[in-house]
């Protein structure tokens, strides 16, 4: 996958966390996702269709997700309830919506967000798509941006 299709998602991730949560997120080096895949507790996933096909996900350990949503919604959350899962989905939705404009002229549509909850779950991208993993560090803990896209 061309790096120009990954960078917009990294930049919009940094911007979304910075602007809406006042949270500085520092991306690590993007890497091809190789087995064994990293495991997560909760993931917000957006489907991409059109000129590029695949998924974008932000995945969190449980405690990081709860701290992130607590900051996002300005209230303390201790369990995964509807408010938490909706917020996790919305964060990915905003990131994907913001990145769309910078995808090198690709005409893509984004789906409604889906949220996967499950201790130590793994995300597997679409067949024939390249799966790029970007570790993200913040004061609330570490998370991952996963970009799995089949591009022209």
């Amino acid at each position, binding site marked *: 996958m061309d790096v120009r299709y990954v960078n917009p998602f990294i930049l919009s991730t940094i911007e979304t966390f910075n602007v809406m949560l006042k949270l500085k997120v520092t991306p690590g080096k993007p890497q091809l996702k190789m087995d064994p895949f990293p495991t997560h507790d909760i993931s917000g996933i957006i489907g991409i269709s059109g000129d590029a096909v695949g998924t974008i996900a932000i995945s969190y350990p449980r405690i990081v997700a709860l701290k992130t949503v607590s900051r996002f919604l300005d209230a303390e959350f201790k369990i995964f309830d509807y*408010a938490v899962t909706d917020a996790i989905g919305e964060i990915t939705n905003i990131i994907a919506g913001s990145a769309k*404009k910078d995808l090198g002229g690709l005409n893509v549509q984004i789906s409604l967000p889906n949220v996967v909850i499950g201790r130590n779950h793994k995300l597997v991208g679409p067949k024939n798509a390249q799966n790029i993993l970007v570790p993200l560090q913040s004061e609330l803990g570490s998370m991952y941006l996963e970009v799995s896209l089949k591009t022209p």
Partner: protein
Amino acid sequence: MTNIMLVDDSTTLRRIQRNIIEKLMTCTIVEASDGKDAIEKLKNFKPDLFFLDVNMPNMDGITLLKYLRSNAQYAGSKIVMCTSESEKARIIETIKLGANSYIVKPFSPETLEQKLKDLKVI
């Protein structure tokens, strides 16, 4: 007291908008999850200010904007459209259709506050 209607299919974004606005002013806020829900709730509530998400199921923000601007009852109401930056063409369209302002996601509390000041709501 100012009456405000937040129309967005995302409960998260409605909650964030409500959190920000309630820290800035005393007002009555009613939330709606899409255009149809908004029209139903307008039977019992007359907003001075609307925040309309552009992309919503059932009835989107542009359709609701057209409805509001074709109804003399809301001629004096201010309307702020909420959208992502990838929809700039639609933002221009909403201004032509009578929206007073727009806000681009992601937005900060300061941006929303500035919009309220620009519209002389606070």
